């Protein structure tokens, strides 16, 4: 009997979105959105629409490219800290400490204004083909943000790699797998599976680090809304729209990682 009821309940509430409390939350959300839309002042959107879109695109581009490249480069950094050799582990470790220990803003400035102001002094560089590259801000932003991902994710991966049960690695070793194979087939997948939720969080942290590039003339999502606020002196409406955009981006990240977590749920 109980069995039957269980089945039935599961059937009834099969569509998870229809749980009562979720309906209430949704209704509340709709009311909130409605009142915000009608009560506040949104005239400026029309004027800035295209600027906002391109800024959002820049944010996404920066986030995705730096995180992917940085994460791939973080693997060796996490790995040498677990396996050695000693000197390399120390180098990797100091790298992580320095990058994690200083504000990203400072790093961006040092690369852009510090190193950037050294390049023009080099004889003949202004005529060379890399000059347009050096004068734009993107390479510096990309470089600084990638370094930061490398350092933070290197640290996360170090913890994750050392947490994989030793027995499973021994099993691989005992069958003559090469170290690289063990890494790519057993060690890394196992480590990443365990830390997916943490990595998801790190992507969101990185999302929120991207606005710093505004200080080197890249107008990203955050910067465009700052500009709007300064030009119009409207305080909350641009902030709300910006929040909505960041929420959507973070929501997308969370969804992707929830999906990945589900895929790897077994343990």
């Amino acid at each position, binding site marked *: 009997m109980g069995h039957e009821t269980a089945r039935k309940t599961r059937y009834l509430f099969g569509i998870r979105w229809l749980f009562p409390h979720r309906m209430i939350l949704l209704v509340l959300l709709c009311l909130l959105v409605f009142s915000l839309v009608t009560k506040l002042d949104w005239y400026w959107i029309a004027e800035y629409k295209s600027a906002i879109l391109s800024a959002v695109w820049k944010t996404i581009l920066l986030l995705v490219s730096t995180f992917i490249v940085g994460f791939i480069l973080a693997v060796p950094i996490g790995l040498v800290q677990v396996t050695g050799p000693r000197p390399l582990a120390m180098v990797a470790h100091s790298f992580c400490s320095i990058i994690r220990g200083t504000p990203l803003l400072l790093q961006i400035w040092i690369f852009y204004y510090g190193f950037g102001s050294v390049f023009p002094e080099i004889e003949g560089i202004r005529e060379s083909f890399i000059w347009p590259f050096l004068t734009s801000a993107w390479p510096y932003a990309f470089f600084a943000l990638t370094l930061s991902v490398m350092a933070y994710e290197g640290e996360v991966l170090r913890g994750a790699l050392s947490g994989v049960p030793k027995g*499973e690695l021994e099993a691989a070793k005992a*069958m003559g797998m090469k170290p690289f194979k063990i890494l790519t087939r057993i060690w890394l997948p*196992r480590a990443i599976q365990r830390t997916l939720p943490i990595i998801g969080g790190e992507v969101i942290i990185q999302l929120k680090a991207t606005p710093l590039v505004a200080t080197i003339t890249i107008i990203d999502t955050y910067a465009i809304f700052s500009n709007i606020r300064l030009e119009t002196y409207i305080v909350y409406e641009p902030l709300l729209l910006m929040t909505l955009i960041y929420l959507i981006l973070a929501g997308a990240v969370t969804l992707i990682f929830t999906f990945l977590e589900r895929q790897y749920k*077994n343990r």
Partner: protein
Amino acid sequence: MDRNKPLKTKYILEVSDLKKTFNDIDVLKGINFTAQKGDVIALIGGSGSGKSTTLRCINMLETPTAGEIAIFGQHIDLIPDHANGLKVKSKEQLRSIRQRIGMVFQGFHLWSHLTIEQNIIEVPTQVLKIPRDLAIEEAHELLKRVNLFDKRHQYPSCLSGGQQQRAAIARALAINPDLMLFDEPTSALDPELVSEVLAVMKDLASEGRSMIIVTHEMKFAAEVANKVLFLNQGVVEEAGTPNDIFYAPRSEKLKQFIRSIK
């Protein structure tokens, strides 16, 4: 697979004066024994006597503190290592040897991010470069042999203890090994399965594969092994045929051990 290449020596495994110390505790105090092709050796002994450690030293999962090991006629050279005492000289050689050794761990150690089938085909496809289709076909054969075919798409965490153990055995068999190291392969199995596994092992023995088996099942040891080693406090206290060991024990320790079993 060069199983049929003539060996330089008649021994498939030679262990001499093997010692292992963990944090100043001497766990192995000088183990000596040899195995010829087709030998099935049972390692018996009390809990903590060093059986698992011996097995793990054979394929260098633990680096010995001292001693010599030769497998398939190849001597595994150990060189001093400033941190841990000794280390393996040629990793390449060790790896090629390990590819011919199948090991079943006391704790199973299935890869928990892979399904049972994936666990089994992992080494054949990735290390031995067997085509995937073929590997899966063989995996299915093995899975049927250990009666796990219908669980092949499950992850290890959803399996019962005995099911995990059988999966681990199948994984070891999948690399078609010349030497097999079993650490209590039947501990989580019920008697019905024990005899099935026993049958599998007899098969393997008749194919000319050598085996070292750590086991608590005396009946099992008596039936499958042609040589029994009794370990006690890190040394081989007595060695001989199952008959000798079980029915004509000489040392006091072994007599006591045998008595406690019966």
